[in-house]
């Protein structure tokens, strides 16, 4: 197996304003994100040779060709649950390394607010929903199963989850593109209505419309577009066989798929001590418990020990490794196809020193992780990548 490290560069990115975009269609969001990326890279739609469209809600490559009026170029719609956005980048990276194309576009987007009801729906792939086994609860209800077990096993409490949300809200309040831009306190989080015990309102991300885009080329071509490009260091993907809720082997206190994908990306990127080597992690914090168990699955702390690091502020903006410096899904919501690309956007901007508000800007960012996990705990589809400055 050959390494993909530093072979592909991101030379332009765009990100729509995330929120309840009642006045915007999915196509409006795509145009908003893609045209920011075009401008950022100094290219136009006619320069793009192939594209990948990341969305759960729309079928086919037309979902990009139509809103952007691309010129009959090859486009695939990619879907991999919550990892959908990152999967567009994975597909594009391999195509560039194969030299099938020289300049490509990835757009992840979702229009979640046209359903007439709140929430993201069943979260199950279409056609795969079993009448009595498939839908038993909402996504927070499913993640709460893990929180209950984690609390019982390791003695963490609701306040530890609250502290994660307080941290993410703090970061999101400093991001103009975020959906929820309000700082909260631990007391507010603990007093909030219960959504799915033990998870309260502030343990859950919003339901949001949004889009994000990236323009990629091979690393040797990148200087033609810009000096401060970033490169793809590693890409991981782990699909759980789907047995956590059926198989007694699963303990409900760790994310196995995230752990497996982490092993892949650390090996590809040569990471030995993540806590020292990584500067930024944009992880899948659809619920606070998701982020907590990511600390452990990604090797930033030992299993069952996350509460000590939460109390110490290890993962805050001014801590050892910033988690969700951009505000995370907590502040951006989770327009499913958009989230992964939006995470890479935060890493890209942080490395370039261009976080919109100085109070969110980290110092000397070299390497960051983007991560998503989708599905039912015990049955995840995990996609993740490491991105950073060339040669690092």
């Amino acid at each position, binding site marked *: 197996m050959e390494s993909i490290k530093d072979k592909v560069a991101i030379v332009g990115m765009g990100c729509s304003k995330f929120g309840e975009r009642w006045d915007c269609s999915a196509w409006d969001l795509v145009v908003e994100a893609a045209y920011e990326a075009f401008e950022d890279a100094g290219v136009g739609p006619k320069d793009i040779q192939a594209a990948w469209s990341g969305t759960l809600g729309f079928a086919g490559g037309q979902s990009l060709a139509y809103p952007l009026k691309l010129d009959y170029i090859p486009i695939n719609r990619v879907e991999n649950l919550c990892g959908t956005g990152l999967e567009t980048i994975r597909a594009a990276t391999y195509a560039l390394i194969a030299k099938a194309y020289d300049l490509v576009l990835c757009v992840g987007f979702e229009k979640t607010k046209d359903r007439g009801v709140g929430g993201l729906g069943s979260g199950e792939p279409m056609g795969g929903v079993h009448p009595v086994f498939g839908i038993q*609860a909402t996504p927070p209800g499913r993640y709460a199963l893990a929180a209950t077990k984690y609390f019982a096993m390791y003695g963490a409490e609701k306040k530890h989850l609250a502290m994660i949300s307080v941290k993410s809200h703090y970061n999101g309040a400093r991001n103009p593109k975020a959906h929820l831009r309000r700082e909260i306190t631990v007391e507010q989080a603990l007093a909030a209505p219960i959504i799915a015990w033990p998870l309260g309102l502030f343990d859950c991300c919003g339901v949001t419309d949004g889009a994000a885009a990236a323009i990629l080329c091979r690393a040797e071509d990148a200087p033609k577009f810009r000096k401060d490009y970033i490169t793809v260091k590693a890409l991981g993907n782990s699909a759980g066989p789907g047995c956590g809720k059926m198989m007694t082997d699963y303990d409900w206190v760790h994310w196995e798929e995230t752990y497996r994908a982490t092993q892949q990306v650390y090996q590809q990127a040569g990471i030995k001590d993540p806590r020292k080597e990584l500067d930024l992690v944009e992880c899948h914090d659809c619920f606070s418990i998701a982020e907590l168990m990511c600390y452990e699955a990604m090797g930033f702390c030992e299993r069952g020990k996350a509460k000590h690091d939460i109390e110490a502020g290890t993962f805050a903006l001014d801590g050892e490794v910033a988690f969700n410096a951009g505000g995370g899904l907590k502040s951006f919501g989770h327009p499913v196809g958009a989230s992964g690309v939006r995470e890479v956007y935060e890493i890209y901007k942080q490395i370039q020193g261009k976080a919109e508000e100085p109070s969110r800007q980290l110092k000397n960012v070299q390497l960051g992780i983007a991560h998503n996990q989708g599905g039912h705990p015990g049955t995840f589809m995990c996609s993740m990548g490491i991105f950073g400055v060339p040669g690092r």
Partner: protein
Amino acid sequence: MAGIVSYGAYIPIYRLDRSLIWLSWGGLPVAGESAIANFDEDSITMAVEAGNNCLQGINRVQVDALFMASTTTPYKEKQCAAIVAEALDLKRGVRTADFTNSLRSATTAIQAALDAVAAGSANTVLVTAADCRMGHPSTADERSFGDGAAAVLIGKNNVVATVDASHTHYDDIMYQWRLDDDLFVRSWEDRFIIEHGYQDNVVEAVKGLMAKYDLKPADFSRAVLFAYDTRRHQAVARKLGFDVQTQLQDSLFSTVGNTGAAYTLMMLVGALEEAKTGAKILVASYGDGADAFVLNVGRGIGKVQKNRRGIKYHLESKMPLPSYTHYLRYRGLLQGSFFFENQSAATIQWRDRSWNISCRGGKCLSCGNINFPPQRICMYCQSKDQFEEVRLADRKAKLFTFSKDSLGPTLDPPIILCILDFDEGGRFYAQMTDRDPDKIEVGMPVELTFRWMHSERGIRNYYWKCRPLRQA
């Protein structure tokens, strides 16, 4: 001699204090409380509960026929006994039939079962009776009705109570009735139907039986009589010459309510679980005529009484229904707005019936682990197609973890989402029902129960949930 081989019963966990109905409607109060089916129960699920309790310790392969008696079968067209048979995991060749449209349908089914056994066309017949009738809101019927189920196994081997005499007659009277599209039971004036419907018929049947077999009231240790209400129940008993204190079987009227087609059978189970060897029991049902039987309790009764889930077990185990509004909600009379999606598929229901309805998992012949739902490739050892089907419905389990989902679509939030591990191995993903949300903890023992999950396109989707062990 043919007779009863085993029995079981079921009473829903919720009880509605009848004064809560009175608080909403006023009018004449009816004392006591009514057993109310949970929002996920109906006559089919209650018949499964009673039938399953009746079959404990019995080899199900022996059952040759399954009759379901009810005036509230959820489907007008589509047999409900077939669903009950599937959920009880009875063999394919079982004869199934619904006995409906009459309060007397349970005793009609018992007579048909006795006839089949006597004729030799079946050795063992399971008769289940369940009802979940609704009186019109504000009426005395609403305050009198309750929900419940009972089951008896009729056979000629291992009989614990022989049926030695019977009487039947029909009677055409507008007592209580429902047209095809009626939600609520209609009644004529109570003074008329009590006198010429209930009393006349029960008296005629019992007197006819005693005359035919030369029996007198003093010969019986117990009289199980259908009841209109407590007062009229006792009046009929006295009219027949029974001593109310010592001979009349408790009508359950003030603790459960009138459970329609299941009523007489539930009282009979109540009598059987207290009966001693040598007891003689009179049974008389009512509805469009009356049926009466004489039962002689034999030596095996003690063995069946042991650990049997009948009336006593369920009567003592209860939770108060907090309000009349809950009752209206559970019966669908007060409808909320819920967003259910993609929840019915006749095809999936059909091809997955062995685990959706019969609750069979796959036991891997290679590694021995239980796979539920059944798989082609073992979750544990990846062997392909090496499974034997095993029924999991009666296995004990412990709660591994849970959540309380306030937003999931349900008529009774929060959804208690559960991961349970069976004591004998294997994991089950289920909702919890019949629970107090404040009394759930990791590690608590739970058992499975057959429930109605939801409906769409006129399909009732049944499946299994878990519940805390029912204890008084």
